[in-house]
């Protein structure tokens, strides 16, 4: 299977870009994966799978893939970890919020009031369930298609559509929508 991907990246530019991405980000990616999986070997597998998907994206959509940056990797690593967990625990799906303490969901009405409207928006997004904010990031920042998002977050296309719809609904309910 690897040999299939080995032939994908013929462009020196793509090689350099991805190598740089790896060198710059692997430390925090592995730490994040390890914090979720509590297993260093599985963490390495999760990060390896992220680069497998990234190589696929480079092959399919080089222009989109060239925009890959930290938020993309953050979303990809998290969901790669959850996918590994789901594979090993088929009867139980671990909730995203259970693993990460970095952004817990709060009720809309309990958002801390701030004078800065932008800060309020950012706080609100940070407090959304990450299953919704993840797909919003991949859709609005990286312009990935539904299928491409599904490959990164390891769910079906239908689930991606549902999460996008619900995520936008949450935003609309609070802020009246996105222009």
């Amino acid at each position: 299977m690897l040999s299939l991907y080995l032939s994908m990246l013929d462009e020196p530019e793509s090689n350099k870009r991805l190598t740089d991405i790896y060198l710059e980000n692997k430390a925090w990616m592995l730490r994040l994966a390890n914090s979720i999986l509590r297993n260093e070997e599985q963490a390495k597998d999760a990060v390896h799978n992220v680069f497998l998907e990234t190589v696929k994206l480079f092959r399919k959509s080089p222009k989109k893939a060239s925009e890959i940056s930290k938020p993309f990797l953050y979303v990809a690593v998290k969901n790669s970890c959850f996918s590994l967990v789901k594979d090993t625990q088929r009867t139980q799906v671990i909730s995203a919020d259970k693993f990460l303490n970095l952004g817990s969901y709060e009720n809309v009405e309990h958002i801390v009031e701030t004078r800065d409207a932008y800060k309020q928006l950012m706080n609100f997004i940070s407090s959304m369930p990450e299953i919704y904010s993840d797909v919003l990031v991949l859709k609005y920042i990286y312009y990935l298609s539904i299928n491409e998002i599904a490959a990164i977050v390891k769910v079906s296309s239908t689930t991606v559509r549902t999460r996008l719809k619900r995520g936008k609904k949450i935003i609309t309910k609070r802020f009246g929508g996105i222009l």
Partner: protein
Amino acid sequence: MIEKSIFKKALLDSVLSKIHEIENSDLPYVDTDEGYDNRIFDLIKGRNMASGISFRNRLKIGIIAAILICLTMIMSITAIRSNSVKLLTNAHKEYFEIIVTSDSNTFPTNIEKIYIPSYMPESYELKAITKRELFTQVIWSNNSYNIRLQQTIVSKNTNIHFDTEHSKLEYAVLGGYELYCVNAEGNRYVSWITEEYSFLLVCPSDIEFSEIEKIIESMESQEG
């Protein structure tokens, strides 16, 4: 109603703040052996191993481009020295470019000497050292912030871009070395190139430049 551009920026910033928390947290580091890194490099590069490793990061909203500092002991940035590294620079509208070239093919094929500073600001302790054939990375931490030093080999036609569209590129001279610096997202990126290696030092912006000078001046080589 929220404007789309503002919504996108808020999305980006919210994720970047979480990543920043990870990088500055006390989560344990995961060490990888050479075999693991080679697996990733094989996956990335496929059959084409000819291209060298260079630091080239694109600056997008909330993301900082890495800065490379051209450092030569004898020559100026545009001077030419026979049988040695030649650095060509071009200032474009949105980025500043450095191209490494040479009349001879004397670049190392692996890291032969590792350069590690003997001086670090107070409270920073050595956290992790990663040694590979083509690059090394050393991390110091004071439990709140990290200082990171990366060393990679340069090769002919190594091409480095500094994105100057979203941040100011600063130039300094330190003991005959030419440094290019960028401050962004709470970090200072300082980089330089010697005849064999390129270095990138990343540290919190609140560290005084005089401290950075001491760090760079205290660099000592060790056999790789």
